[in-house]
């Protein structure tokens, strides 16, 4: 501990100490601060006064000193997508916005956006630069708005949210169809046949549908199911088509491929489980569970167009 002692060194040339000594002989010099340091310190004090007046600072009652500096930049109106000039008080956020506004790649981005806006889907697909732009912007938009259901890479969840990376599209996989889906949304519907068909008929239909994608071999039951499917009793072909490949206009599923979108059939190992899953679907139908929200008005038109291009390059068809 320190003790107050007399300075050990006395006389001319001695450096003054603080007068404390530790462990008997450890002392602390009491040198003055270097003059350059002091002047820098005084300088910052003077500067702080200037700063108070030029930039937003002190609270005054219900408000605060606004400062003299303003920064102007352009903002995009979320609703209309139009740009308008804005002027705001000097702060680092305004400066950042001004910087972003004036950045060279912002001009490039705007030029590219105008080009994409004017181009048709066919032109965009053929242009590597526009595709690169659509992918980079689309990735961010997809992550913000679509990934919650369809997954980060558009892989979806079997039975719940369609996989966008394969070539099976309920509502059509061309760029125009995807664009339409994004603009107006989709509501998947299939009537419930539990009341219309007898349980053994539902059984037969399920048997038939499983033969379509070669899950089972045709049998008597499947032949009976075929008649219900293709005939007036079930009338399944209205929507799924006579070839059972689905209709994009109805959003009806292609039943002849190995891809299942409404039920997760491949996850069931036993044939009976697959059949049960299918029977439940035929009996209950699909209603108000498979809704794709509409994005018109919620996203800007340019963004929806870019999203359509992005989703199409994930796994779109011609």
């Amino acid at each position, binding site marked *: 501990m320190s003790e107050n002692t007399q300075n050990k060194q006395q006389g001319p040339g001695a450096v003054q100490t603080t007068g404390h000594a530790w462990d008997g002989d450890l002392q602390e010099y009491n040198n003055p601060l270097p003059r350059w340091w002091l002047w820098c310190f005084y300088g910052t004090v003077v500067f702080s006064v200037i700063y108070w007046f030029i930039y937003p600072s002190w609270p005054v009652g219900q408000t605060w000193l606004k400062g003299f500096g303003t920064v102007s930049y352009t903002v995009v109106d979320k609703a209309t997508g139009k740009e308008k000039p804005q002027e705001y008080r000097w702060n680092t956020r305004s400066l950042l916005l001004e910087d972003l506004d004036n950045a060279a790649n912002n001009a490039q981005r705007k030029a590219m956006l105008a080009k994409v806006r004017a181009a048709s889907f066919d032109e965009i697909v053929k242009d590597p630069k526009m595709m690169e732009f659509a992918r980079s912007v689309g990735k961010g938009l997809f992550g913000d708005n679509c990934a919650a259901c369809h997954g980060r890479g558009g892989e979806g969840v079997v039975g719940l949210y369609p996989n966008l990376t394969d070539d099976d599209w309920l509502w059509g996989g061309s760029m125009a169809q995807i664009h339409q889906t994004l603009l107006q949304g989709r509501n998947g519907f299939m009537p419930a046949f539990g009341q219309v068909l007898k349980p053994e008929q539902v059984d037969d239909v399920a048997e038939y549908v499983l033969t379509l994608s070669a899950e089972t071999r045709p049998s008597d039951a499947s032949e009976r199911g075929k008649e219900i499917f293709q005939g007036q009793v079930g009338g399944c072909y209205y929507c799924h088509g006579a070839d059972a490949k689905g209709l994009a206009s109805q959003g009806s599923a292609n039943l002849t*491929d190995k891809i299942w979108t409404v039920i997760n059939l491949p996850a069931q190992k036993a044939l009976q489980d697959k059949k049960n899953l299918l029977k439940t679907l035929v009996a209950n139908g699909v209603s108000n569970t498979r809704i794709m929200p509409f994005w018109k008005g919620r996203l800007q038109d340019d963004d929806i167009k870019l999203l359509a291009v992005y989703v199409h390059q994930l796994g779109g068809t011609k």
Partner: protein
Amino acid sequence: MSEETAPLYQKRIQIYPRSVKGRFRNLKTGMLVLAYLIYYLLPWLRWERLNAPDQAVLYDLPGRHFYIFGLTIQVQDIFWLAGALIIFAILLFFVTGLAGRVWCGYFCFQTLWTDLFIMIEHWLQGERPARMRLDKGPWNREKIIKKGGTYAVWLLVAFWTGLTFTMYWTDAPTLVVDTLLGRAPYPAYFTTLFLTATTFVMAGLAREQVCTYMCPYARFQSAMFDHDTLIVSYDTARGEGARGRAHLGKGLKLREERQAQGVGDCIECGYCVQVCPVGIDIRKGLQYQCISCALCIDACDTIMDNLHWPRGLVGYTSENALNGRKTTLLKPKTVGYGVILTAAVGILTWSISTRALYTATVEQIRQPLYSQLTDGSIRNTYEIKLNNKLTAPLTMGIGIEGTSSAILDMEGMERIELEPQGRIKLVARVQVPPDPTGVDEEIDSITFVIQPVAGVTADPIRREVPFSRPETD
């Protein structure tokens, strides 16, 4: 503070270097003019490039390109900078071991700018005695005009120095106009004003203190000295004689008279001390402050020439030579530095001359790893990044090899033209159809072959990437 406290720091004694004429002064002036011509004019030199800025030397940080005449350095080649810095360091070691502080005396920007600022001072305030008188005198009209004028010219030079440095990082003519009109970006003003301040302070006020107290190179160069290193030195034996040096007094005017009396050749004129920019007396031997500018050699030579005595009382020599021993230049140390230097220059030259004309990377998109298609095919998607390092357009062809069944689909972009210095990201889909015979070709990797098909001929780049498929149970 008590009265008897001694100051911790010695106050700087102002140095007023006297001007001198001579061969080393001419060499230094020549070097100065050459260095300033390059430094101040280089940013203005134009250089035609396709699709790139037309400034001969431009370090374009936002664009991630360094343009040095015909050479364009992209961001992935930035390690060349490390190579260049290593070469400069070894060159410094090599030259210092051989010829002493040549860098400090002739090339260092601190020396050059201090020299220029002293020239301005000399031009406006006069020779050493006039400057000393002016400093001592009261603040009258003459002193205010002369001192103020000097500071004003210094400030102007310092500002243009700072602005010129900034010009290397952006288009020079635009920057000058924008700076003067007050619409240049903040970083440009900061850089310019910061360098204006440092130039003014370092070259105008701090001067030799930078070399003596601040510069690390000045200190570690002395560690490379040996007895064979070329140094500026006073020939003590000749200058002092047996009885020391003496003024040209009565009976000591002729060399023969002095030698007869045992008096050395140094006539104590003090010229060598007055011209020294770091304020040392070379006759006291080798000192760490000495920057080897050789102005004292010029000073002494002038005096010796006037007396018609032989030159070389102060001159370039080595410790060994001074002590009458042989100076060896081919020492293991210098040879070693020389070998390393040659190797470093060779490797850098080789690396630059054999640089790739284009780069290509292929990465598998891993979410999802694969997609199963309606016909049972498995599809993997890849992102290809192409980068044309040429200043000319380049057409690339992309294909896959090593598999008969896999199909590459790039929506017609298998053949793509890149603009000069252009880069692009593309998507490539690879589909493997199901095998009808059931003997599925077990593809677990795909090799992309990317090569220029027009523009230049170069070896193809092959990139092997994984191909993912569902696990079979």
